[in-house]
């Protein structure tokens, strides 16, 4: 029960719609270039993200984080857990 409740709360950045805001709680996955790049760009725990828009062809997405605009693919957004 508890697990189920938790997993419903835990969403990924990919699931958010344009205009939605969330706080990053975790970045999943092994350490490596992708994770490091995300961290360098300020995608870390506690940062607030606002989904700005989706690219014309459906991917990537544009988000506002730490006061600037960042674009990442949905496949990367999937690793970012938000609350």
């Amino acid at each position, binding site marked *: 029960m508890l697990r189920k409740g938790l997993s419903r709360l835990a969403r990924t950045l990919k699931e958010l719609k344009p205009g939605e805001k969330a706080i990053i709680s*975790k*970045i999943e996955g092994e*350490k490596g*270039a*992708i*994770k*490091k*790049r*995300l*961290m*360098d*760009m*300020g995608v*870390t*725990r*506690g*940062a607030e993200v606002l989904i700005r*828009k989706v*690219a*014309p*062809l*459906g*991917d*990537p997405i*544009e988000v506002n984080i*730490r*006061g*600037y*605009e*960042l*674009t*990442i*693919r949905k*496949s*990367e957004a999937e690793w970012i857990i938000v609350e």
Partner: protein
Amino acid sequence: MSLKFALVGNPNCGKTTLFNEITGSTQYVGNWPGVTIEKREGKAKKIEGDIRIIDLPGIYSLSPYSMEEIIARDYIVKEKPDVVINIVDATNIERNLYLTTQLLELGANVVVALNMMDAVEAKGDKINFGVLEAFLKVPVMPISASKGRGVKELLEKALQVAQAVVSTGISASTPELHNDSIMNCIREIEETIVPKLKSKSGNSRWIALKLLEGDENVQKALEVPGALLTEINVYQEKLEKKYDMDIETVIADSRYQFTTNVVSKAVKKQEQSSNLTVSDKIDKVVTNRILAIPLFLAMMFGIFSVTFGTIGSFTVDFVDGLVNGTLGNFLSSLLEGAGAASWLHDLIVKGIIGGMGSMLVFVPQIMILFFFLSILEDTGYMARAAFVMDRLLRKLGLSGKSFIPMLIGFGCGVPAVMSTRTLENEKDRRLTIMLIPFMSCGARLPIYALYTAAFFANNQTMVVFSLYLLGIVIAVLSGFILKKTILKGEVAPFVMELPPYRIPTLKGLLIHMWDKGKGFVKKAGTIIFAASVVIWFLQYANFSFQAVADPGDSMLGAIGKTIAPIFSPLGFGDWKSAVALLTGFIAKEAVVSAMGILHGVAEATEGSTDLITALRTSFTPLTAYAFMAFSLLYLPCMAAFATIKREMNSWKWTLITAGYSTGVAWLVAFLIFQVGKLMGFR
């Protein structure tokens, strides 16, 4: 005494503008992430003393995941600049300070230059410099590089810091950025493990931190023995357990906690108005779901229309009249009046004026194209194009980031290949480099301009546009094939900043345009000059060095006749075309000058109109198109070839690239000619 100041900062923080402002050099400023690729140096002009300014690549972090980050870090660690001027974009201070924290950890003598203060003031935000200085423990200087404000004071402060270090021998103290549990681990590693290392470079506090972080580059450079790594591992596991994250994330997280804290104390943000910023409004249109791609195509088409339409052809006619008409006539009568030998007259008028002139006439056109490309770059549109196109490019196994080098490839292959350094994945980089030669560069323009003027005078723009499209289609197909065969690999990440739109300065655009135009003129004066003379001589004499009446009997004729059969199935099997294509390796535009010389034009009156008449006797519209397609796709020029070799760092891959493009060129030209013939074109 000479001092070294290094400029370090994020891409897009105005670093190049500041460099230009300090050194007074006319340096090109771009507006897409990663534009500063090579290390550049200049002498500080606004201050007394011998101060050299080193412009390091724009980087987001010192973690060594891309070549630029490694270049910057190695420079600071090994060359030990007297002062590191860290440019921080004040409008984007929180993320920019992340790099600052890493510079402080490194123990460099940092002076923070808080740039774009004018934009911050315009927004109504307030930044308390005293609070910033108290946290960072280094001087913080407000500047506005684009307006030249605060630059002199910044340099004076940096000089003070450098002199203080020299006189006291004490470097800046490193602030304790991290919380107690992390700092304790760092201190313990510094005290117990670092002294046991044989080789040491950098300060011991930094080494301890890097060991804790598990930085493989540092481990390798310091030859850390396995036993010590196990000891370090104990600390790593302790922290990983405590924070439930891997150690790299723990440290990065901790740095961001520091910057977030600093910003919350030092920056007072004006209440965000709900109005959209100008940047947002532009973005709404430019990256609109329906409009984005048509807009991109329309923009490209518009650029080509201006470049090849009335304005472009006017400039060509103008320069043609000047070089081949006025100058040619003048030199011709001068030489005749002086009673010069006929071979000398021939060499100067036909060889040099003819050869260089055929290329010089296109310089204004190339400059117009570069003017537009730099507008796209400087405004920040290039990054949006990458954003819009990423999905498409991923289908080919590339990322939107490859798109930027490819767009630059429309200008020139050399900077395009160099700009692939921003790609983190080696395979992506290799693939992008292999595809760049298919982007039709500025030097191929003269070929199209000449042939379309001769055979497609009524729809020049359409034909040239179709060639550009052909190059793109070939690149797309090649990407698809190569990614499935010799360059198999995982999809690389796409994490990129979208810089705010900026209005480019006319000065910046003109500097860029002039730089490129100058580059071509210089090439005309050196390589093309030499090639023109050599080609002229080779077509003037035979192998016993005697003048020949018919160029077909000359040395060049013999070489051309030997290789010409290769091109027969493509529709242009005459020796002149074969020779022209050979010289294209020197520089693509040399194809045109070679054609000029070989057809013996530049007879000092009508200039290239003669060449057009001459071409009409040996080409048909169909073979002309096949010839243009071949010129577009085959072997990159010498300069591009050398750059590819340097960037790929492998002869094998360079030769594969050259061989692949030439094979594709032959096949495509073959198909155009043979299929076209079957369909009844001629």
